[in-house]
């Protein structure tokens, strides 16, 4: 368990280098080395989406993803989504629609919604439900999340 390795990757647009244990997950490293807490371990099985991180443009489950694998990759977390004070349209839509309660699952839903709209700018309700079926919200904010995806889609279309 004590093997370590130095890795280098791009984190939210900045190049970083860090010494990691080979057993550490990406969520461990984001929390302990970079004080980034938006990706959170919850179910520990890659089923709830709370630990979502985007690696080379693909959403992954950060609690199962060994940190060693991001060597040389581009890593984006929820903390990198807003541009300065300006929120991403998806984040704005989640606030406007009240698409969260406790907020623990929210970063995962926001990142998955952004990826969905990048692939499919005007998804149907069924497509939304299908795409987001890997994210769980115990507060049951699903109807508001579906609405937020629609609002975000419109915002993106009209340029923000």
């Amino acid at each position: 368990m004590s093997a370590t390795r130095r890795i280098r990757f791009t984190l939210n647009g900045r190049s970083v280098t860090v010494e990691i244990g080979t057993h550490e997950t990406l969520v461990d490293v984001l929390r302990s080395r970079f004080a980034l807490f938006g990706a959170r371990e919850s179910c520990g099985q890659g089923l709830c989406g709370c630990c979502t991180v985007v690696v080379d443009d693909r959403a992954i489950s950060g609690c199962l993803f060994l940190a060693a694998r991001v060597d040389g990759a581009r890593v984006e977390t929820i903390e990198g989504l807003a541009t300065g004070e300006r929120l991403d349209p998806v984040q704005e839509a989640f606030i406007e629609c009240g698409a969260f309660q406790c907020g623990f699952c929210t970063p995962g839903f926001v990142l998955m919604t952004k990826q969905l709209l990048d692939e499919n700018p005007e998804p149907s309700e069924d497509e939304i439900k299908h795409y987001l079926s890997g994210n769980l919200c115990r507060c049951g904010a699903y109807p508001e999340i579906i609405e937020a995806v629609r609002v975000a889609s419109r915002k993106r279309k009209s340029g923000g």
Partner: protein
Amino acid sequence: MNATAKAGQVGRSLPRLEGRAKVTGHAEYVHNWQVPGMLHGKIFRSAIAHGRIRHVEVDAARRVSGVHAVFVSDDVRRVIPNPYYGPAFHDQPILAIDKVRHVGEPVAVVLAEDPHIAEEAARLIVAEYDELPAVTDEVEAMTSNVIVHDVLKPAGTFPDLKHLEGRKGTNLALDFRLRRGDVRSAFAAAEHVFEHTFRTQPVMHTPLEPFVSAAEPGDGTLTIYTASQSPSFVRIEIARLLGWPENHVRVKTAFLGGGFGAKLYIKLEALVAALALLTRRPVKISLAMDEQFFTITKHPSTFRIKSAVSKDGRVTARECEVWWNGGAYADIGPRVTQKSGFTAAGPYDIENVSIDSYALYTNRPPAGALRGFGIPQLVWAYESHTDMIARALGIDPIDFRRRNFLRDGRPQATGTVMQDAATGKVLDRLVERIGWGRPFDRGQGNLKRGRGIAIGFKASIAPTTSVAIVNLYADGSCALYCSTVDMGQGSDTAMAQIAAEVLDIPAETVRVVHPDTDVTPYDMATLGSRSTFHMGNAVKRAAEDARAKVDALKAELDLPPGSNIPLPELFRRKYGMQAGNIIGIGSFIPSYASPDHDTGLTPNATPFWMVGGTGAEVEVDTETGHVRVMRLINVADLGTPINLRIVETQLSGGAIMQLGFTMQERMEFAEGQLLNPNLADYKIPGMRDLPARIENEAVAAEQRNGPFGAKGVGETATFGVSPAIANAIDDAVGVRLTELPLTPEAVYRALTKAGR
């Protein structure tokens, strides 16, 4: 107290104040808390349901490189000599002593700087037990020879548990009884008698932020950071365990990643306190998802309900016997047994009522509060029973309810006269929305459609206290100090709106200070949908007190009371510079009268009633038993909403959670083992499990003693979901399910049995 909102702050559908922090990942959770030198704890748990501990072998774990320490109960007793805790009974040891009483009970703990090392080392611990027979069923526990606790140890907090002190040879942790009228004669004279038994299954809250607590030792002090719904209780209980004054224990919380009743009273706090004192280092324990299933659950229940009905369809008597499976440690189960127990006959005007509600110890993981505090289990039974009676008598189920409804001004089973309970309005709106009298597509082929409704009610918890402080700074800005925990219900926003309404300032400008027992004043807990009413009233009074002090300052400065000189100028005139504070304090404790021990009767059972109803349309596939919920309508009386948008999300979210408990969730036990403690095998509702349509409505109502007419809402939409769906299934295919969850297998078996 029933002043209506004039400043326009109460009644606004303001987005949650913390929205930006939550969508950017910056919201503060205890999950995030870390300090240099911190140790992580991993718990080693019992693999059996009941047994005497012969030996716990920890040497191999101690030898793992990177392990700081391994502790068992003897170590805990070095810093806490009597390490038993609990809100109702002092029955739960911090780590198991002599015996284990449920699968997953904490036996030992490993500490390491790297949580992965602690986890690896915990796997090397071996415990040897003399296994004992286990009792797992709540009804069997009444008469079983297997006794979970040798002696009962009530905590002394609740007067109705005192008579159980020192009792031996029983698993009964409370026998609440209510007797009203003459039940025996009414049954003897009845035209019809109906009796049914209903059961509910073990389920778990599943907050996505699993339990997490940390403790940091100081010089004769201790600071606890914990994802808790009850910071004030944690402080009092930890101070009691340590024999310290309350002011040596500081408890802080942050936003909670869900609570739902799980994170109440003491969970990990006593353990991290002991570990911090043993090691003199900060210690944090974050449970993994599977460990939550061993920490707290929802009471499984068995409910035998029997009704006498007259020729004209009036219920003349009802007999209720409810067994609550409390698991191995009482937690708050005895309160569930009593507080919910006295409403077991339902929102009906029944002259003769007998209720027996039993809290039972078993060898299952402990059960406690879960969004409704026992009410969903009761409504499941009495609203299924009500429909079954109506159908058997050929009376329309809505009409049958109307004939028997408990209306304002009439006494409930306890004798407390109903006030501000809009039961009739809730039913009217459900009937209207679902279109009860209008034609309905009953489906075709193997897809049959049906609809059903159900209504439940709940008494708020009493007696409980809330205290709040409003602090006006010299620049005119405002901070609100209150120990209500925002776990997603939107309390920060609602409390800010109440303070802002009184002070006539924008709610967005109010800074809500999160619970910190060294800073924020006492609050009983964030539970039972009590905060809007109790803390809301305290916040309103604190803001009124601050406003009165502003007026007093104006008088002191020889200004007329109506003077519109801005607050910062008042401070400058008083102190000669930007300095000083105006501090308003408010506290609230509603009136209450304890029920009589022998009859359960009281003239004042609760400060307010919550009413929630659900209408469901379902489609049943008779070939597979699969049930599709086409439409779920949730209607509630929550008084006058402080923030309608947030209220609607509470209704919707509560109903979706209860939908999980109704259709799919069940902790599966076999041979004493829990088979599915993970989200792969224990499925909570996801996007795909939503009803095709979900509608929510707050009826026009006013809670006259509530802040600006408001009362609680967090639990209301859970009440009617399960029976509404079971009633709709019966309506669709003519079979009746009496046990939750309503899985396709259960529906299919019932169809087969009925020959359909």
